C-alpha cells in the first residue's frame, strides 16, 4: 500500500498546486499532456521509497506528487464519439431524462492527438445508469448489445467520490466500444443493478460488491463470489492491507510487498 501523509491526503482540484515544495524540490509537474485540458487531482503523495517520520535522509522527502485523473474532454471528441453521445442524448431526452442530468461528463482517454488509439468514457450519475444502459443497448444507432462486465476502482483520497464502477460495453453491430463510469461515495455505496438490461453483469456486479463493497440495488443475489460469505472487508480497496510475511533468503530478510520501498 502506498504510504500517505495524513496532512496532505484528500487533496482536491481546489487545493493550490505549488510548484516548489517546502524542501525546495521542484514538483514533477502535474502538467496536462498535450491535447488534454486539465487533470483532476484526487490525492497528493509525498516523499519516496515509502519512508516517513525518520528524517529526510534520502533528499526525496520534499517530493510532492499528485495522483491525477483526466477531467472532462471538450468537444469535438473525434471519430464516432460525437455521434454516439448525440444519439444517446436524443434517446435519453425521448425517455424523459435530460442528458446533463444523467451524464456528468465525457472523457476521451488517452487524449486525442497523442498518437494512441483513444477510448470513450461516459461518466453517468448512479440513479440514471440503468436508463443509459437501456438506451445504449436498444437504440438501433447505438446497439451496444454486449456487456463485458463491471470493474471497480477505489480512490480513497477523492472525498465523496471514492468508489467507481466501470462498465465496458461493446457494439458488435457497429464495431464500437465504450465505457460507462459511475461514482458513488463510500458513505452511501449504492448503484442500481444493470442485470435487468445486461444479465451477464450478474457475476461481475457480485465481484465488484465482493472486492469493493459497492451495493448494486435490485441485484437478484448479491452474494460474495470469490471470498467466503462471512469474510470481513472488501479486499480490493486501497485501505485493505495486502498482507504477507517477511521471507528470509540466504540470511537476508525480504519484507512483504506492501512494506517494500515504493516509488509512487
Amino acid at each position, binding site marked *: 500500500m502506498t504510504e500517505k501523509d495524513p496532512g496532505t491526503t484528500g487533496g482536491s482540484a481546489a487545493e493550490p498546486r505549488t510548484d516548489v515544495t517546502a524542501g525546495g524540490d521542484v514538483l514533477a509537474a502535474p502538467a496536462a499532456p498535450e491535447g488534454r485540458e486539465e487533470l483532476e487531482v484526487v490525492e497528493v503523495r509525498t516523499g519516496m521509497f515509502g519512508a516517513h517520520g525518520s528524517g529526510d535522509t534520502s533528499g526525496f522527502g520534499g517530493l510532492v506528487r499528485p495522483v491525477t485523473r483526466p477531467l472532462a474532454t471538450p468537444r469535438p471528441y473525434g471519430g464516432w464519439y460525437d455521434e454516439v453521445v448525440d444519439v444517446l442524448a436524443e434517446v435519453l431526452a425521448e425517455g424523459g431524462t435530460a442528458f446533463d442530468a444523467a451524464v456528468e461528463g465525457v472523457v476521451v482517454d488517452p487524449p486525442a492527438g497523442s498518437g494512441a488509439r483513444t477510448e470513450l468514457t461516459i461518466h453517468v450519475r448512479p440513479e440514471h445508469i440503468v436508463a443509459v444502459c437501456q438506451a445504449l443497448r436498444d437504440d438501433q444507432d447505438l446497439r451496444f448489445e454486449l456487456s463485458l462486465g463491471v470493474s471497480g476502482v477505489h480512490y480513497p483520497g477523492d472525498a465523496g467520490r471514492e468508489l467507481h464502477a466501470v462498465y465496458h460495453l461493446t457494439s458488435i453491430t457497429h464495431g464500437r466500444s465504450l465505457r460507462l463510469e459511475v461514482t458513488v461515495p463510500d458513505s452511501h455505496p449504492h448503484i442500481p443493478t444493470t442485470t435487468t438490461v445486461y*444479465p*451477464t453483469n450478474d457475476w461481475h456486479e457480485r465481484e465488484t460488491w465482493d472486492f469493493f463493497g459497492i451495493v448494486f440495488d435490485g441485484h437478484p443475489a448479491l452474494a460474495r463470489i470469490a471470498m467466503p460469505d462471512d469474510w470481513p472487508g472488501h479486499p*480490493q480497496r486501497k485501505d*485493505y492491507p495486502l498482507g504477507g510475511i517477511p521471507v528470509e533468503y540466504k540470511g537476508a530478510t525480504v519484507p512483504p510487498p506492501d512494506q517494500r520501498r515504493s516509488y509512487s
Partner: protein
Amino acid sequence: MSTQSSARSTGPAPGAARPHAARPPVDDTSVPSFESSGGDWDEIAAEIAELGEERIVVNMGPQHPSTHGVLRLMLEIDGETVTEARCGVGYLHTGIEKNMEFRTWTQGVAFCTRMDYLAPFFQEAAYCLGIERLLGIEDDVPDRAQVIRVLLMELNRVASHLVCLGTGGNEMGATTVMTISFTAREEILRIFESITGLRMNHAFIRPGGVAQDVPAGLSEDFWHMDTEVRKYLAQLGDLMLANPIFRSRLVGTGHLNLAGCMALGVTGPVLRSAGLPYDVRKSAPYCGYETYDFDVPTSTDADCYSRVVLRIEECYQSLKIAAQCIERLERSVGEPVMVADKKIAWPAQLAVGTDGAGNSFEHIREIMGQSMEALIHHFKLVTEGFRVPAGQVFQTVEHPRGELGVHLVSDGGTRPYRAHFRDPSFNNLQAVALMCEGGQVADVVVAVASLDPVLGGVDR
C-alpha cells in the same frame, strides 16, 4: 501487518485479527447429507430412497475430477433430471489483481500470466497492449515483436483447445482422446520452451515488445511440430467426430442459442457455435491480425458437438496463422523485438549462461565495467520501473475461451493503480444454469466441458 492510519467502516481494523472465514457455509445439521468420493452410488441411492426426500441437492466438486478444476456445481435433481444448477467459484482466488497493484508495470506480466494457466500468452498480450496504449507507444512496437506475439498466441490457442478436447473426452471416459491431446500439446510446449525457456507462466511478452528474440532454429522445430500436431488433430477428429457414443452424448446437449449467448455475454467458440462470427481478431484487430489470412469458423447447431468441431477447426486456422508468422519471422531476422525508447525497454537481453540461464554477457560487461550511467539506468528501470501517464484503458483480445478484457487504470505512477481482467471463463460459467437445467445429470459434465472453464482465470 500494515501501517495505514485509518480503517473504513467495512474494512477490518488494523491490528485486529486477520480476516478469515470463521464458519462452514452450511450450519444446518438437521439436513441429511452424504459424501461420495467416486465409486458406486448404489448404497447412497438406497439410503436416499429410504429417506423419501423429494428434493435432492447434489454438490459436485469443488474437488470432482469431471468439473474441470476446482469448480463447485450445486445441482438440484429429480431422478436423473437437473431442475436447478448453480456454480460456486472462488476456491482458487489468489488476489492476483491486488498483488499487481504492488509491483511495477513490467512485473505485472509475471502475475497475469498465471491467471488462466492454459492460455498464459493471452493475458500477457492483453496486459501489455493496454500498457502500450496508455504510454502512447502502440505504433512504436516493432513488427517482429508483434509477429512473435501472434505466433505465441496462436500456438497457445491450439494448446488450450487441445486440453479442452482432451479433458472433455477424458471426462466422458475416453482416455485415449486425452492422451492424444496431451501428446500433441507436448509438441507445442516444446516450441514454447525453446522460445521462452518455460512451458507455462512465461512472462515473455513485455510492455514494448517481447523479452527476447526467437532462437535460430525455430523454423525447423515449428514445421516438425506442425506436422505432428496436424497428425494428432486428424486422429482426434477420427476418434471423436463420427464416434456413435460421442455423438449421442454431445449432439443436441448443452444447447445455448444466440439470444442466450448475447444476454449472458458469452463469447468465443460457444458464441460462434450459435452462429455469430464474432471474433475480436477480426472486429477489433490488435498485434496486426488484420494482415493475416484466416477464417472464423461458425456453426448454427449451438450444441456441445458443434463446439468440438469448431475447436478442431480453430486449431487448423491457428496453425495457418502460425505458419504465416514463421514466414514473416524468416524475413525479419535481426530486426528489434523491443521498442527503441530506452526509458521503457527492458535493458538486458537474456543469454544462456553456464548455469542455463542469465543476462547477456555483453550487457553485464557494459554496466559493470564500462558505463556507470548504463548501470544507473539499468538499476532505475528494473527497481523503480517506468511511469505510465494517468488514464484508463480497456483492451480486449480473442482468448481461446472468448473475449478477454483488461481494464488498466494508471495514476501516473510506476505501478498499476488498478488492473482488472474480464476473464471469459468467469463470464461464461454463468451460462451453466441455462445450459443444464432440464437436462440429464450426465449432460452437465458435457456442457461444462464445452464451456471449457479454467478456474485459475475464473478466480484470479
